[in-house]
């Protein structure tokens, strides 16, 4: 058995683990091994404290209050916006819109931008690696507009077929919507290249960064992304908060997404004028407390350093991949050159549901099923996979427990 000390990294993983109270518990009589981080990762004490502090000390509705609590609450809320701006390196803080998650961010663009700019015969290109949340919103608006949704094929190793993508681009292409990293297979897509190619064809690009946000450095200006969406809960932050980044020039021309308070300048029954960005897209009282606590999550990542996190997770991924490759009957789905710390696999003759249930009995939390990527499962002619995904608090020792559990279950269940 190995332990965390095997990993040569500047991060003190035990000290990091001690910041996550949820990890220190037993489930089904066994020490919890949490490997479902691609679905949502756990929250450090600093995020939990920030949430509690907001309600215990600062809670008030934001922006129009003139009293002290409203001022504090507004400042904290807007401080998170600035932290996000720095985190993804957007040019202006006004380009950061708060949503309830990546899904809503994508729906906002589909609904607002799509309704204004899509026409009959236009094409939206997604990829075969997309989560349903980056397929269905486009299908809905395409249906309404008589546009067409096409998908970039996925190669056998889990990479996108960029040569084919190049052939698909045409003057009909209005938007390309792809993920930065695949939630199912872990593939890191060449988004810089995809954006460049799309722009040359005259198309706008939305990047779904949900799986990338806690692993990869994001620089929306260097990427020249038109839109970039992410979720706080996949980056050690609270659920119910997401970000839509959009270039000012695009956001300003887009119609509001929802009507209500906050998003207006003046309302009369004759004419209503809308607020400036970002508020034009933030109708109603937002999820203030969770937005405030999101800043603590960004601070957590920044304090550790994205490069350090990525390097450590890469070690976990390589180690786990090597271990799984040793086990007979285990087939890893998705062996792309560049991957975030996600391993999807199938085991000959054993259904992922049985495997996942038995893993849970051993205290190991993994995800099983189609991971909201049914077209991708169809592509590989499988019903689903078992997926283990790692965050910075996971250890080599935990991967050993997972691998031993897998071997034991295979021994028990092998027909």
């Amino acid at each position, binding site marked *: 058995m190995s332990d965390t000390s095997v990993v040569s990294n500047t991060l003190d993983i035990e000290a990091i683990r001690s910041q996550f109270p949820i990890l220190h518990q037993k489930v*089904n*009589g066994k020490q919890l091994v949490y490997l479902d981080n691609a679905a949502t990762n756990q929250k450090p004490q600093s995020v939990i404290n920030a949430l509690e502090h907001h309600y215990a000390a600062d809670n008030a509705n934001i922006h129009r209050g003139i009293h002290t609590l409203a001022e504090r609450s507004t400042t904290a809320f807007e401080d998170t916006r600035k932290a996000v701006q720095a985190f993804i390196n957007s040019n202006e803080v006004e380009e950061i819109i708060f949503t309830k998650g990546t899904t809503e961010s994508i729906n906002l663009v589909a609904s607002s931008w799509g309704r204004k700019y899509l026409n009959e015969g236009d094409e939206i290109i997604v990829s075969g690696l997309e989560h349903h949340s980056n397929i269905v919103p486009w299908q809905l608006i395409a249906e309404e507009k008589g546009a067409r949704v096409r998908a970039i094929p996925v190669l056998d190793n889990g990479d996108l077929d960029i040569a084919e993508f190049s052939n698909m681009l045409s003057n009909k292409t209005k938007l390309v919507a792809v993920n930065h990293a695949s939630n199912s297979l872990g593939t890191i897509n060449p988004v810089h290249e995809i954006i460049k190619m799309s722009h040359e064809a005259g198309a706008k690009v939305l990047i779904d960064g949900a799986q990338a946000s806690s692993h990869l450095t994001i620089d929306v200006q260097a990427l020249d992304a038109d839109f970039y969406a992410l979720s706080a809960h996949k980056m050690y932050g609270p659920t119910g908060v997401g970000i839509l980044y959009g270039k000012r020039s695009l956001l300003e021309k887009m119609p509001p997404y929802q009507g209500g308070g906050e998003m207006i300048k003046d309302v009369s029954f004759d004419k209503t004028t809308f607020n400036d960005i970002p508020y034009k897209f933030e109708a109603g009282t937002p999820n203030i407390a969770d937005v405030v606590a999101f800043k603590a999550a960004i601070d957590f990542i920044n304090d550790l350093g994205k490069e350090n996190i990525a390097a450590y997770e890469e070690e976990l991924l390589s180690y786990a991949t090597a271990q799984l490759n040793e086990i007979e009957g285990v087939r890893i789905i998705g062996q792309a050159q560049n991957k975030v710390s996600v391993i999807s696999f199938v085991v000959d003759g054993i*259904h992922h*549901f*049985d495997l996942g*249930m*038995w893993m*849970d*009995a*051993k205290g190991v939390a993994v995800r099983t*099923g189609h991971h909201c990527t049914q077209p991708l499962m169809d592509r590989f002619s499988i019903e689903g996979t078992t997926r283990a995904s790692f965050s910075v608090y996971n250890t080599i020792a935990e991967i050993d427990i997972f691998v031993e559990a897998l071997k034991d279950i295979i021994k*028990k*269940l092998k027909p």
Partner: protein
Amino acid sequence: MSQSIQEVQNEIIEEFSMLDGDMEMTIGYVMELGETLEPLEEEQKTDDNIVKGCQSKVWLDAKPNGDKIHFKADSNTAITKGLVSILVRILSDRTPQEIVDADLFFIDKVGLNRFIGTQRSNGLGAMIKQMKIYGLAYTAKAN
């Protein structure tokens, strides 16, 4: 004289009590039970026979057997198959009225709800519902 629905459930509760609530042993035992399930013919595994709401696939076939209903079922996952076999053991070869009236108290007593979990037990719930619907349909037919 065959056992009543109540008696079969008490027997199941007794069997599971020997596992001491150990999750791995419980799953292992549920899978073993699945292997005792009367096979369902491949041609019966139709879309019509699929129980909706199951995370894993479950096929359920009902045939009249005198004044009773005979259930056959199968699943593509071993654990669900085991769970299904328990329901078949309790509810197959009962009269439609017995099936409709059955109070399945064993689920709580055995802790199936606890270890299957809410989202996963949906499949089991859908299976029970489907068996009761067959019971109702046959009752209506008899009347």
